[in-house]
């Protein structure tokens, strides 16, 4: 995003897929901007491929041939006449060489400068910078010497437990907790493999592992005139396998004074590094209200909708405006955090079997009926869930006047969605939202392991089983035709069905 002042965006290529591609396209529509979709050949027909004004086939092959194929994406952008590229999250969103290449091709990259992406993408460099600014960081080893014996002795020095983390990491990939030095090498090797596969880089860092951490992050935004704003915090403490699954704003964990300090810290980082666009500063909050800088994500986050719900701002619209060089027409005091919002991530996975991803055809997704509920899904009925992409199916976001109302609205909305065809984490999310520690606000990032037993599936109650049997009989006997056929024809012959039934 070099100086684009006054440069109007008329068409945007979205270098992403699924729900986030759709999310960006929606804001483009509201602003009268045309959108361009890209997709792997097999994806044609999925919502994001057809919702945009234009759709381009990336061809077949793995991610490097498709969504990570920088040259191809840029040439499609040029062919389509797009003037900007929105990277979404994941894929190329935090890839500085892509950002550079986009700008070099005369297109606008919707995100910060390549220099800032580089700085924040490098966990060591960003940590050193934070120490210079006076933002607290977690004690740890961030050196280039990656000899496994040295890493092990550093781990010993920091004191167990320690966290092994990929320098280039994110999303919980390439990350391991070591509680026993005897297992250090095994965890290190596994983290290195995962990092090499996910990021093409297996450099590791080692940090003090906070016993009772909470994950608090601050949504920040900067325009090109040096105005830096925060859009309050999100709490993303509930995670499984180091990936967020429940997010909310505001956080119930922050004392008012801590909240003020953490928001101010995030803004000071933006000022110091000359940030532009949307970003998120992630912090770890300890039991004693001290907080440490974790990382800064230089892109839109999966969980950005909770911020939109409580502040009323459309963050994608704001990204596009900033990219056009428009300055903020609001001050910090104009941004208010009202009510309470919660997001849950619906995954195609089996929480009762070690969160094993599930694949198959999602036969029906469905929709919700209440106001103040947003269902961001990248799939439509009949789409395939494959092993090629992240197993997130959709996000469900609710808004309530307080936390209690938001929880109730979420529980009702989760019940309402059919989500038929693949195993999902829906019931598991309900168990989390109904857990007394979630409701009381006493939870930490290891919530799902601490309360593993409480979160286990409970046996079905007999009346529910009976209702399922009734539904089964109606469906299988042909009274009901779920594919949309005419049920009435079957109703004329229920006695035949009944006879069949009795003969079984």
């Amino acid at each position, binding site marked *: 995003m070099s100086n684009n002042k006054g440069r109007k965006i008329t068409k945007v290529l979205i270098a992403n897929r699924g729900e986030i591609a759709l999310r960006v396209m929606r804001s483009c529509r509201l602003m009268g901007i045309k959108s361009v979709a890209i997709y792997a050949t097999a994806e044609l027909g999925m919502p994001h491929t057809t919702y945009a004004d234009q759709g381009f086939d990336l061809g077949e092959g793995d991610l490097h041939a498709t969504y990570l194929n920088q040259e191809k994406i840029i040439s499609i952008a040029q062919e389509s006449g797009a003037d900007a590229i929105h990277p979404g999250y994941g894929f190329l969103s935090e890839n500085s060489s892509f950002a550079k290449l986009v700008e070099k091709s005369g297109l606008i990259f919707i995100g910060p400068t390549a220099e800032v992406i580089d700085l924040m993408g490098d966990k060591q460099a960003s940590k050193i910078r934070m120490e210079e600014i006076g933002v607290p960081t977690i004690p740890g080893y961030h050196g280039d010497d990656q000899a496994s014996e040295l890493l092990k002795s550093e781990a010993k020095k920091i004191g167990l437990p320690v966290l092994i983390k990929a320098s280039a990491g994110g999303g919980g990939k390439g990350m391991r907790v070591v509680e026993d030095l005897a297992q250090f090498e095994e965890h290190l090797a596994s983290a290195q493999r995962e990092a090499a596969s996910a990021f093409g880089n297996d450099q590791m860092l080692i940090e003090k592992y906070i016993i009772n951490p909470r994950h608090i992050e601050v949504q920040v935004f900067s325009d090109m005139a040096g105005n830096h704003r925060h859009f309050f915090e999100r709490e993303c403490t509930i995670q499984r396998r180091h990936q967020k699954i429940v997010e909310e704003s505001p956080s119930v964990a922050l004392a008012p004074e801590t909240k003020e300090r953490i928001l101010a810290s995030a803004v000071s980082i933006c000022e110091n590094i000359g940030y532009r666009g949307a970003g998120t500063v992630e912090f770890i909050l300890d039991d004693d209200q001290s907080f440490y800088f974790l990382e800064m994500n230089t892109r839109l986050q999966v969980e950005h909708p909770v911020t939109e719900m409580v502040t009323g701002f459309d963050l994608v619209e704001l990204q596009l405006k900033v990219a056009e060089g428009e300055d903020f027409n609001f001050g910090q005091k104009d941004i208010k955090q009202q009510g309470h919002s919660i997001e849950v991530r619906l995954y195609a996975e089996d929480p009762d079997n070690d969160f094993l991803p599930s694949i198959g055809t999602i*036969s029906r997704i469905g929709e919700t009926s209440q106001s103040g509920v947003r269902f961001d899904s990248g799939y439509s009925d009949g789409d395939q869930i494959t092993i090629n992409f992240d197993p997130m199916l959709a996000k469900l976001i609710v808004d309530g006047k307080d936390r209690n109302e938001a929880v109730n609205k979420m529980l009702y909305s989760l019940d309402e969605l059919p989500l038929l065809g693949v195993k999902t984490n829906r019931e598991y999310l309900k168990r989390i939202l109904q857990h007394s520690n979630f409701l009381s606000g006493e939870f930490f990032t290891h919530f799902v392991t601490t309360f593993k037993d409480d979160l286990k599936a409970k046996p079905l109650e007999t009346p529910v089983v009976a209702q399922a*049997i009734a539904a089964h009989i109606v469906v*299988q006997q042909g009274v009901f035709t779920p594919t949309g056929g005419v049920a009435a024809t079957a109703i004329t012959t229920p006695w035949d069905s009944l006879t069949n039934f009795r003969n079984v």
Partner: protein
Amino acid sequence: MKKLVINGDERVIEQLQMDQERISFLLDGDQFSFEIVKSTPTGLELKSGNQNLKAAMTRTSAGITNVVIGGCDIEVEEVSGQRRRNSQGGAGEMRSPMPGWVLKVLVKEGDQVKEGETLLVLEAMKMEHAIKAAIDGTVAVVHASVGDMVEGGVELIGLTPLE
């Protein structure tokens, strides 16, 4: 009498009545009766006494119905059906839980392994999944090597139980 498997548990039912308005049956000896209020292509509305009940459902195939009731995912399957997915096999058969790529094979034939020991690492959906020994035993056969793309439900490693 009829046997149904509901989320893996076998239940016995005996149908008492079924017409356009009502279904009643005995489930494990208790009687249940439902009034059919409405059936649409996407769901079913029932009444049990004064209790209103809703279900979203789909007929996955002949004999199998997937129902969602109050956020609970329930699969009802006729026992007579031939279908048996991904048979678990014997205790010594370590199968792939889903399709993926073999990242690492940590044992070879003849190795002694303990229950819970990681035998093989699979990558699927960008995550690593460890295939662990379900029993103490000896590795009898290794069917996969690093880099293989494997289907779900196939045997990867066979173990002979320790006597």
